[in-house]
């Protein structure tokens, strides 16, 4: 179990219908690659976030497969069209089976 994992998301509170909004996400995670060795020469087991998804009102916006070369605290910034008011749901999948979720509501106005 990776410690100190905390998702963060920044989504505008409001948008006009049909607007393209910029979404920023970050999850604090050490992203241990599985390539490094400790002081005794033993391999430190891989522990990364391997998948990140974002859905809007149940419809997928982005689905990312992540690999061990991605550095600590992975940050994703992307754009999404907002056709109506609703919820963005963000999900991060950890190697250890943990799933971290966050959601943000956006209004039309």
């Amino acid at each position, binding site marked *: 179990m990776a410690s100190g994992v905390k998702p*963060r998301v920044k989504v505008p509170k409001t948008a006009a219908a049909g607007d393209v909004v910029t979404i920023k996400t*970050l999850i604090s995670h050490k992203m241990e690659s599985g390539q490094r060795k400790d002081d005794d020469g033993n391999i430190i087991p891989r522990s990364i976030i391997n998948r990140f998804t974002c859905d809007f009102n149940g419809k997928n916006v982005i689905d990312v497969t992540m690999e061990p070369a991605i550095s600590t*605290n992975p940050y994703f910034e992307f754009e999404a069209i907002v056709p109506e008011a609703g919820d963005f749901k963000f999900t991060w999948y950890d190697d250890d089976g943990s799933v971290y979720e966050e959601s943000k509501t956006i209004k039309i106005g």
Partner: protein
Amino acid sequence: MMKTISAIGGAAALALSAAVVTADPVDDTLILNEELELVTRTTAPAHVEELDEVLSGWLFRGTETRAMQADDFDNPGMIFVEKALEAWDTAEGSEGKSCASCHDAAETMAGVRPVYPKWNEAAGEVRTLEMQVNDCRTSRMGAEAWKYAGGDMVNMIALLSSVSRGLPVNVAIDGPVQSMWEQGKELYYTRTGQLELSCANCHEENNGNMIRADHLSQGQINGFPVYRLKNTKLNAVHSRFKGCIRDTRAETYSPGSPEFVALELYVGSRGNGLSVEGPSVRN
């Protein structure tokens, strides 16, 4: 034959003039989170005789790096500030106290960072913010002192800096601190190491020029602790001093040593008037 030589000479001169790359600071305004304008350029304090203007290191960095610092979500240093916020509320030591037990919210510490290092009358010494934090930990909380430039400490200093962002650095240089300030000034202008470089050689005489592939700034410390892209963590000011002195190929002082406290006092005062920026983002 003569003609050929002069043509070569001309080409060489051209190549030389093209090789002189200037790295002047940019003309830009740092607005934090689209609401708070920070002072990154101001008239030099009277005691900094060799400079007309003092400039934050922010002005010497690239467009993307500057943008990263301008938004708390993009600033990776804020992750460490959040860690310190947890420590702020966590009771430790024999007294069962946390920072919050005495100080309430961390925001109440606004205005503390800009005046450090400063004189502590009861202890009869110049104290950096790190020394004050450790004094709180050992004498009020009954907890163990943190390593001077270790992770816990640098995170806490970043938290204390973050709540003072926008306030002008205002380090006192007279009264009881004066002798230590003079010592810091002496260190600043003393050449050290095999390369025989003083702080001033680079940061006073050559700021705005390139040092190999990097821009030399004025070496202001208003942005510390600094999140460095090269090591993806927060760096304490004394660690930076150590790195600089090591680069002159000298034996360095240790973080927390009286020499570095004196140097921090002096270098801090050179930035009087600039806004506190910590945690800033640099190369």
